[in-house]
Structures are given as C-alpha cells and as structure tokens.
C-alpha cells in the first residue's frame, strides 16, 4: 500500500466505527448501502455552515453588482487583470463568491478512507449482512462493472457530477469549465473498477451539492456574476501597447463601438444555454 494511505489509518478507523454504528450490527441498524448514504449526509451536514456563510457573502454581493459589472467591462480583454481587480474588489468590500479550498480538502480523506474500507469489506461486514441496495444492486462491495445496476449508477453519477460542476464552477473561465464537464465522462472506464459503494457515496455527495446549489440560487435571487470569460477577440495591438504601461493606475479604454454588438450576442447565447 502507498505510504500516504497509512496517514489515513486513524480516519479509516473513525469511518469504520461510524459505519459500524450506522450499519446492520450497530445502533441505527441501516443496511450497508444506506449507511454509506447516511455517512455522506453527515459529512455534508458538517459543511453546511460553510455554505451558509457563502450564501450570505453572495447576498451581500448583490449590492455591489454595478461596480463589479463595470470592472468586468473595463478589463474584458485582459483575463488576468480582470481576475485581479475583481479579487481586490471582493477583498475591499468583504465579499467573495468563491468557496475556499481548505474545506474541500476535508472531503478527500473521507473519500479515500471509504475506498480503503470498501476494499476490505470483510473487516467490517459480517458474512450474513445484507449487501444489496434498492433491490437492484446485488452487492455494494463488488466492482461497478459486475452487474448492470453498476452501469446504471455510473450514468446517474456522471449526470450528478455534471450538475454539481455546473453549480460549483461559477468562478471558472469557460475553457476550464468545459474541461471539467468532459472529464467525468472520461473517468468512467476507471470508475467501473471501483466498488459500487463508492459510486453511491459520489452520487449522494453530488446530489447534495446540487440541492445546495438550487437553494443558494433561490436565496440569492439575481444571477451570480457571469464566469470570467476569455474573449475570442484579441485586443487591438496598438491599444494594448499604448495602454500597457499606464494600465496600473488608469482604467483601460472603454470598449470601442464595433465590440458592442458582439458582446450582446454572446450574452444572449449565455442566457439561452441556462
């Protein structure tokens, strides 16, 4: 085993204990599949305060919409500068629509530890325990490609993954976002070798993310700022050179007239997609 996994042993033990408590032999007495769902919900419930904080931040941001739009407009040809200015603006006004990275990291060990638990199911599960789920999955410790239900779950997984990426990647640029949408599909050949229980974990956590995203959108009525986009049009050379040096202090030139209709069209496209 990779030495890194040894660091996770205490967490593996904790997860095993919680699963045991939730499981058929424990106090709660759920089947193993539902225990995994319950464990996922517990992990996500612990993270709800963070989501609430973010919703508050997004609500506070609504008041600053016009200023932010102005910044986006001013630096629409310079992705780097625009991100910088937006981040500065967020900081100055004590708002930030993006999630911090650290809480995200807490999910990795849970996921890896769950993987380790499911790799040696007999340490935890008794031979007589029910390992099926919802009458269609015969055994959650088997690989996803062992039964047709595994493929069904993988389809649900990909759909839920795309949906959760849609909600979580509002601050990313377009190319990155497209890549994030394609990769889950590319993962499927790898995921078929994962235990079904792990796919259940993924589906649950993704559906939670989607639910949270829907609630967030409802509580924050207006759309969050459109993801920073790289313009397909390269900025006019002369303009960029002329203003390159003084861009630090001075706002970049307002968009020239020919650019205006193009922008309108792009905006419409974005609306149609949503």
């Amino acid at each position, binding site marked *: 085993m990779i030495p890194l996994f040894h660091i996770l042993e205490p967490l593996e033990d904790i997860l095993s204990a919680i699963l045991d408590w939730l499981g058929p032999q424990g106090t709660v007495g759920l089947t193993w599949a539902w225990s995994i769902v319950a464990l996922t919900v517990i992990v996500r419930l612990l993270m709800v305060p963070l989501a609430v904080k973010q919703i508050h931040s997004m609500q506070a941001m609504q008041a600053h919409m016009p200023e932010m739009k102005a910044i986006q407009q001013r630096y629409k040809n310079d992705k780097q500068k625009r991100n910088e200015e937006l981040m500065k603006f*967020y900081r100055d006004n004590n708002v930030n629509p993006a999630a*911090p*990275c*650290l809480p995200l*990291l807490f999910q990795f060990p849970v996921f890896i530890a769950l993987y380790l638990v499911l790799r040696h199911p007999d340490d935890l599960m008794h031979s007589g325990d029910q390992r099926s789920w919802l009458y269609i999955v015969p055994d959650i410790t088997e690989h996803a490609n062992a039964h047709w239900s595994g493929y069904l779950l993988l389809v649900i997984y990909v759909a839920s993954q795309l949906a959760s990426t849609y909600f979580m990647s509002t601050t990313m640029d377009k190319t990155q976002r497209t890549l994030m949408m394609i990769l889950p599909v590319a993962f499927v050949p790898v995921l078929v070798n994962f235990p079904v229980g792990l796919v259940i974990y993924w589906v649950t956590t993704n559906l939670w993310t989607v639910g949270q995203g829907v609630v967030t959108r409802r509580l924050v009525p207006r759309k969050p700022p459109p993801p920073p986009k790289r313009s397909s049009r390269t900025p006019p050379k002369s303009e960029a050179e002329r203003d390159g040096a003084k861009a630090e202090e001075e706002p970049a030139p307002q968009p020239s007239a020919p650019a205006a209709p193009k922008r309108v069209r792009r905006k419409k496209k974005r609306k149609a997609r949503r």
Partner: protein
Amino acid sequence: MTIILRLPAYLGVGLVYAYRYTLGVLFPGGCKYHPSCSQYAIDALRRYGLVRGIVLAGWRLLRCNPWSKGGVDYVEQQRLFR
C-alpha cells in the same frame, strides 16, 4: 545538473496537475484567491523548489479558509522565504 536538482520540484508540479485532472474534477470548487491554490502551488514549486514550495502551498491552503478574505496573492509576494 540544474535540471537534476530541479527534478523533485517538477515531480511536485506533476502531482499538482495530476490532482487537477482527477480529484479536482471529482470535487469541483472555486478558489477565493487569485491565482487559485493549485496554480499558486505550481508557481511556488517552480520558483522555490520542492520543500519550500510545499511549505508555501500548504500555508496558502491554510489561509484559503472560510474566515479569510481571499484576494490577490502571488507567490512573489510571500514573506516566509527571502
């Protein structure tokens, strides 16, 4: 020779990219800093090598918590190593 000395840092950069295209996709999220934490880690590893790069990236991750304000934060602005 320099290339050999820099190999560990490149290994670290490779690991960050590996993270981006595996776990990073499975657990989508943004970053409240610019550049993002993973980009910061890559920059730090390239500039300061494996050990100091890891320290800087780790410190940045710790700062990327719900109680910080976020904002613009480049590797060049760091004050841990001078």
